[in-house]
């Protein structure tokens, strides 16, 4: 690969077409990098301004996030707690179903079943978040109310359920990729040595793929952390922190959506607060995505007969 890149002999730098195309592609890359830098820079700039007004210690230690109140609270912890509740809740709902489905589709399902389920998973992954939000508010919450009459109109459990449904395809698709990366020859050898199919799947394929599966879960959680519409529509906008799933939850993302519905005056403290929250969200999802990708690629490299050999 390196040799191909550095072999300059085969493409004369004097050829104008070569230079034009190389320049164009480099220009595209420069544009992409510039737009990324602009996004990060814009968030960073306003966040720095915000921290000129609000000390970092209050941001980390205040126990309320009420930037527009009479006596404002600027603690990020309540929002982080809400985001953690939704992300964990959704993962706990989605993981068992998604993992079983991935193993089933990869090793057991017949061709017809697999193609139907693939289509269903693809359909679930292309439903827009705002439609999921509608579903959560107008169907899941009323349905759950039949089970728990004490359920509030805006609650965490319905948001968790529907966010879980939304991240299910991510876990299924990526876990299947990880399971599929385990060489079939290894599994066949195990069966030839007397292991049953179940043993090969549960004791060999699943442990070999577990880093990739873990990576898929981390990537799915990243999506849950960033999910905005479902949480804004179904989980409400309470200012307090509650660990009761029957009550409302406010997350980093739903604060942003709620705040932007009012008129944000540039330069105001609420405006700066939005950028600070967005910066936290950027750092959090960036880090989680990096971790998830690292796990997925480590999983591929670690698989027996994987790309490391």
């Amino acid at each position: 690969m390196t040799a191909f890149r550095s072999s300059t002999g085969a493409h004369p730098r004097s050829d104008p077409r070569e230079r034009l195309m190389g320049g164009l592609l480099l220009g595209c890359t420069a544009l992409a990098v510039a737009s990324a830098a602009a996004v990060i820079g814009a968030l960073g700039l306003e966040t720095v301004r915000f921290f000129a007004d609000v000390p970092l210690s209050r941001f980390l230690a205040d126990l309320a996030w009420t930037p527009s109140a009479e006596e404002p609270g600027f603690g990020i912890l309540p929002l982080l707690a809400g985001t953690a509740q939704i992300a964990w809740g959704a993962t706990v709902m989605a993981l068992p179903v998604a993992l079983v489905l991935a193993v089933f589709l990869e090793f057991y399902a017949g061709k017809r079943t697999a193609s139907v389920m693939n289509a269903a998973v693809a359909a679930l992954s292309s439903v827009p978040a705002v439609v999921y939000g509608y579903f959560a508010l107008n169907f899941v919450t009323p349905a759950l109310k039949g089970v728990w009459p004490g359920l509030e109109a805006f609650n965490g459990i319905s948001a968790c359920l529907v966010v879980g449904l939304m991240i299910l395809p991510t876990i299924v698709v990526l876990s299947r990729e990880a399971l599929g990366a385990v060489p079939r020859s290894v599994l066949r050898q195990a069966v030839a040595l007397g292991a049953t199919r179940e043993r090969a799947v549960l004791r060999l394929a699943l442990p070999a793929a577990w880093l990739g599966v873990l990576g898929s879960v981390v990537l799915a959680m990243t999506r849950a952390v960033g999910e905005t519409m479902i949480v804004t529509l179904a989980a409400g906008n309470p200012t307090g922190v509650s660990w009761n799933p029957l009550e409302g939850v406010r997350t980093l993302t739903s604060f942003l959506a709620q705040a932007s519905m009012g008129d944000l005056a540039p330069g105001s403290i609420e405006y700066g607060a939005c950028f600070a929250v967005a910066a936290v969200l950027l750092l959090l999802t960036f880090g989680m995505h990096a971790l998830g990708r690292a796990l997925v690629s480590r999983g591929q490299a670690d698989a027996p007969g994987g790309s490391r050999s």
Partner: protein
Amino acid sequence: MSAPARSRETHRVRRWLRALGGVAAGITLAALCMLAVVMLLNAGRGPDAGISAHSGLLAAVAGTLWLAILTAAIAVPVGVGAAVYLEEYAPRTRAWRFLASVLANLAGVPPVVYGIAGLALFVRGMGLGPSILAGGLTLGVLTVPRVIANSRRALASVPESLRWNALALGATRWQVVREQVLRAAAAGIVKGCSAALVRAVGAAAPLLIIGAASFTTFAPVSPSDPLTSLPTQIFAWTARPQAGFPALAAGASVTLLFVMALIGLVLWDIRRRHGEARR
């Protein structure tokens, strides 16, 4: 363990695994069906006559089509170009690897964050206001890293030997890329772009942040008109508790899914025709 006991155990395990798999598949299918039935039933109820006179979807549909075109025009050339450069041209130095990984991980940053950045950059910084153009730029910027990630995956799956063989036959670097690599990766790239674009068309959060109008009296005819789109319209109607609005929101949702399916169909046709042209 004696042989019969063991075989009985594996039979039990196998039955359990199959049953569990069936249950998981059933849950997934049931959820999808419920989603479809709820949307269609609510949409079928129709809004009250009093609201419906003021709640047409033409403006929102036109806004969404404008946004789809703008997003594609920005994200596809920039994203695919950058992906080709990063996979085929960029030297494997630490600096390039760092840039590539930053771009890769920006694909995991949620759309709301881009909405806040778009508010500062396009709505206020460039003075575009909450216009279709500001929305298209925001969606474009958020889609670029996703297009890069998907296209790079397609390019990386092209066998290295293809490049070497073409080089050995005297092709220049761009000839290798155009005649071999891009041809082999074309289907994957178009698929990756479609997935990223369909996501962008369904995104409501960033448009809401930069200030999409929830009530418009005319359909946007140019990119400088006020921002309106189907997803933000669905959000606005869903968030209103008054009777009649849920039905409106459901109708708009069905319309949005229809528009997305239409866009998907166009992209699928491009993919199919390209595949035929290759053979």
